[in-house]
């Protein structure tokens, strides 16, 4: 195995293996700007890397050198790129490569290069890598359940290699741990809309609506399920408006008179999309208005905008804008 510790950080100039290579200094010019006070080990490693890269030497020692350079700066995409060329030329063991990437990921999991490299390796390993890969991403997400790169990679693995069977359960588990985790909601949407095993959005809609409504009632101030609910009706607004479950969850939340901003917002959207609200809705909205000084507009949508402008003052200008965009009552 290509051990990382084999040269123990000893200066390359002292190693017999590198005696034939002349290090190539960086062409920084006489007066570089944003000049970094490189550590000696960094400068030397990169000088040797430049020499090897220029000579296009795709050798085992070149592979070891890229490993050293990546440890010093995992953001150097040129080094990663060259490493791929060397891996290919040497026909290297890519399972070992995954272990290497894993160690880098443990200390630096938010780096484009690393994840891109991982995708390249897994692509070559094919379906055999799937189980291990999905497991590994889980371990990274267990430390940070919103790691953007990890989620993108996970979606890519599912699409390229499969493994959808347990994914909805996994989303479920993450949402049980933290129902406010929007990345898990997003993944749920991804699974529901794209899994080849679930029959697509239309087949899943009813059960997803039930799940989402429950989540809303438990935490009406959680934006995620509200947006998810809208997402379930993307490209099918008519069904959204016609589903009584949705208007009634709005009503339930509004009637509690607390944490009702998203419920009001959903009701506003429904009305804009053509919902004909019954008196019950009007009464619930009117009951939120406590100001004596200003009467509430008789038009429901206008009234909702007026309340939101007041209670969601961070977005007051948005609600005024929405109010001004409302169709003029016929």
């Amino acid at each position: 195995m290509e051990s990382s510790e084999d040269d123990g950080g000893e200066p390359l100039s002292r190693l017999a293996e590198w005696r034939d290579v002349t290090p190539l200094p960086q062409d920084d010019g006489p007066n570089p700007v944003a000049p970094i006070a490189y550590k000696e080990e960094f400068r030397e490693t990169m000088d040797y890397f430049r020499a090897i890269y220029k000579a296009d030497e795709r050798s085992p020692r070149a592979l070891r050198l890229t490993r050293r350079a990546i440890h010093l700066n995992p953001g150097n995409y040129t080094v990663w790129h060259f490493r791929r060329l060397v891996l290919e030329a040497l026909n290297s063991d890519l399972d070992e490569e995954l272990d290497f990437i894993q160690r880098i990921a443990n200390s630096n999991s938010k780096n484009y290069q690393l994840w891109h490299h991982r995708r390249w390796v897994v692509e070559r390993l094919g379906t055999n890598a799937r189980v291990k890969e999905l497991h590994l991403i889980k371990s990274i997400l267990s430390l940070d359940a919103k790691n953007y790169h990890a989620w993108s990679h996970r979606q890519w693995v599912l699409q390229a290699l499969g493994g959808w069977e347990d994914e909805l359960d996994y989303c479920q588990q993450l949402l049980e741990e933290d129902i406010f985790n929007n990345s898990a909601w997003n993944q749920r949407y991804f699974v529901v809309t794209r899994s080849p095993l679930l029959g697509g959005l239309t087949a899943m809609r009813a059960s997803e609506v039930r799940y989402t409504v429950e989540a809303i009632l438990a935490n009406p101030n959680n934006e995620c399920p509200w947006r998810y609910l809208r997402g379930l009706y993307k490209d099918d607004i008519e069904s959204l408006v016609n589903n009584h479950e949705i208007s009634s969850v709005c009503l339930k939340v509004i009637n509690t008179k607390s944490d009702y901003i998203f419920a009001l917002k959903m009701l506003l959207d429904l009305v804009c999309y053509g919902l004909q609200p019954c008196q019950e809705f009007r009464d619930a909205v009117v009951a939120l208005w406590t100001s004596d000084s200003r009467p509430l507009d008789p038009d429901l949508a206008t009234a909702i905008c007026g309340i939101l402008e007041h209670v969601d003052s961070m977005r007051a200008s948005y609600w005024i804008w929405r109010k001004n965009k409302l169709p003029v009552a016929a």
Partner: protein
Amino acid sequence: MESLTSPTVTQRDQILVEQQVFNIFNTFFNMPPSSQSFMLELQRENHVDYLTNGLKHLAPSFCVLDANRPWICYWILHSIALMDEFVDPELEDNTIDFLSRCQDPNGGYGGGPGQLPHLATTYAAVNSLVTLGGDKALSSINREKLYSFMRQMKDASGGFRMHDGGEIDVRACYTAISVASLLNILDDELVQNVGNYVLSCQTYEGGISGEPGSEAHGGYTFCGLATMILINEVDRLDLSSLIDWVVFRQGVEGGFQGRTNKLVDGCYSFWQGGIFALLKRLNSSKGERSIPVGDGEDSEPESPQTTASSDATEEEGLNMDLSQGGSHSEKGDQQETSSRVTVDNIDHNSSKGRAKVEPLFNSLALQQYILLCSQDLNGGLRDKPGKSRDHYHTCYCLSGLSVCQRSWSEDEDSPPLPRAVLGPYSNLLEPIHPLHNVVLDRYQEAHEFFTRS
């Protein structure tokens, strides 16, 4: 109905940040007025010192940014330009020389001398040179080679790869299209299908993700929206849901979060705040209400509401040469190309009120967050209280601040009203061109230069 269980990770993290931020606000509101005005003052001198030092020397800890040096140049130079300050001529010369060493003989700029050309560092290098301005800086860019580099990065999907064999995402699309537009080398080949790619990244939430299927994110939403405007296809996006998503990213702290239920971060002052600057320009031309909102239009995102208003661009003038994307590389006829962005879509939802330029976000709350929570009084700006300053956050907090200060102005050339600028009026920064995030007059100079040559 409140959940009685212990707070989740998201709730706990959020509570901690809110406590810190509200402590700062409470302290501030209990101060005598003289201290308050000091707290709200942009510490220009300290910021410029901090930034200028970065151009001259970076500590060994910056080794991890060794593949991002053009970015460091851009973050610093743009921040300095926002404060209407300059670097001395020698440093300017050195910067041009250094960036030339990052330019690949076959086109594009790498993260340092001898590194592979990369679209993001190309964007950073070009924006740096545009920010420096002058013939020497602008003519140092090899546009022909850069164009062929971009063609090589173009993927069959319509998107772009960041570098040879690199990742494809919305960032790559934006950096490619922004640079090509700025340098007047944008043509049909570069534009082809890029709109499809960006469109496939708009999520059910309304924002835009880095890749199809991923989560809506402030940085990618800015990049995607700017790209669509530059290629003249913005009306293909569902703008009403995009707006609805972005207004909700402004939190109780006044600053923006990058994603739903994530923490506030000063850099989103630009990535999210800048979205409003882009929208404002779409919305303000000819006083037409142009952005459809919550009224069923969503179901037909491609309905042909594209009333071309051929003089929309004149109204915008050079400030926002939206037509540049549409004109592609046919030099000299930018002004003729009509802008399709005046999406006249008011049929059944005619407005009750007339459009006054009123920001759709809370500009003063954001300025308050930037000045009180992101500003390090010793120089530099940061993500949030408790974090350290860095050049990246300095750049994007200041860019966001500039956007805020002009969020009521229809016309970037006239100074904003005092009430638009939180703190002393001397906090006023230079206006930016929001599509490229360079200072407006530097954009204008570059635009003229590259239209001529």
